[in-house]
């Protein structure tokens, strides 16, 4: 194998322009998936790309560099709408995993159980894809197309995650259900961003359910129905959730997953105050 550690995005893009290289960032999905004796080929490591680091203000919105780790995200000063994404970050593996692993890696790996996806969906995030051919931007909901499938081309790098401006009063929440507290793959998870007006009624609502479909799903019908409701009295039932097709496996059966997702949705909506 050959291993490259470029310092600039443009250099990395040149290294991968023939589409044959494998990309690695934190390696926390990449290395555990390697098999003994497997040939590694050409590897381009993205972790030192100086121009892809950190979270910055971008006009009215935010730009999360494609090499930003979960630990960096947790430490970044961000408005309360990002609280759900930060809570998700704190549940990714363990501290050492968060120190190495990137948000971009979580999206590109495209696991149905990726904890970053529901929260980023509720932030209306888009991804910026760079190649020597130029840059394009795709909404996250279109970027991930299936289990471990995305629209990224072999010569592209996810250079940034873009989050548009959010109202100041909107607060993010994340609920994860695992079979234990730490180092665990989600059975179901729910992210929400909820805003409550001075009258105590919900006037801004976004909610997404993860691990109950190949790709985490926003819940537009539920979001619309929440407007004008008092958060404390909201009770979400499985029938309120749409577009889900949970699997039955050793972690839980389909019916259990739907009930769990409804309960998590209720909790995420009711418990919207910052603690």
């Amino acid at each position, binding site marked *: *194998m*050959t*291993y490259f*550690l470029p310092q600039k995005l443009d250099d990395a893009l040149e290294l991968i322009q023939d589409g044959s290289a494998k990309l690695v960032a*934190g*390696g*926390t999905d990449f*290395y*555990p998936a390697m098999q003994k004796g497997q040939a*590694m080929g050409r*590897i381009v*490591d993205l*972790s030192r790309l100086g121009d892809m680091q950190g979270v910055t203000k971008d006009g009215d919105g935010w730009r999360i560099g494609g090499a930003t780790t979960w*630990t960096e995200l947790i430490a970044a000063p961000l408005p309360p709408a990002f609280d759900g994404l930060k809570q998700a970050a704190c549940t990714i*593996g*363990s*501290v*050492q*995993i968060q*120190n*190495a692993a990137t948000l971009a890696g979580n999206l590109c790996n495209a696991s149905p159980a990726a904890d970053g996806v529901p929260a980023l969906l509720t932030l209306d995030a888009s991804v910026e894809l760079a190649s020597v051919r130029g840059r394009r931007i795709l909404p996250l909901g279109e970027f991930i197309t299936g289990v471990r499938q995305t629209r990224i081309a072999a010569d592209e790098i996810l250079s940034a995650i873009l989050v548009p401006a959010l109202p100041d009063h909107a607060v993010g929440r994340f609920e994860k259900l695992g079979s234990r*507290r*730490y*180092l665990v793959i989600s059975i179901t998870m729910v992210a929400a961003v909820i805003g409550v007006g001075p009258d105590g009624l919900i006037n801004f609502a976004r909610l997404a359910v993860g691990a109950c479909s190949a790709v985490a799903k926003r819940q537009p019908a539920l979001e619309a129905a929440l407007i004008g409701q008092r958060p404390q009295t909201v009770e979400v039932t499985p029938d309120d959730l749409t577009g889900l097709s949970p699997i039955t496996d050793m972690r839980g059966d389909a019916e259990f997953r739907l009930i769990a997702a409804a309960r998590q949705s209720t909790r995420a909506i009711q418990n919207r105050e910052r603690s």
Partner: protein
Amino acid sequence: MTKINMTVNGRAVSAEAEDRTLLVEFLRSGLNLTGTHVGCDTSQCGACLVHVNGEAVKSCTMLAAEAEGAEVTTIEGMANADGSLSTIQAAFQEHHGLQCGFCTPGMVMSAAALLKDNPKPSEAEVRDYLEGNICRCTGYHNIVKAIMAASGQLDAIAAE
């Protein structure tokens, strides 16, 4: 084969290694620093924990080449300059924070990373921080106790 250079425990080192060498293999086989252990092949157990540029990472989940030019600290770099045990190591010994000892290097490195950022953690914060370190022997209680003692807060745990 590539020549890989880094600073390990304050000493500049350089050794030939295949590109695919993991940092943990480089430390163990290349540099004979066998205090860093390998306990799993899923990046879960934390026995391989080292500090790279001050941050706690799992050395089984990183290529040696990725640490090119970095400052790496392993368990062998934790003792005081005169060879006596560091506060954390001494507390593990004193409070029986280990049985078989397999997880201990990782536990000590994790504890050091925690206390650097948070010198007086609560017991809950210690337990939370150790989420990425698995111990099959101790039931964690004495590990937590040792870390509380190392942070000068033995009373906090004795009172509970």
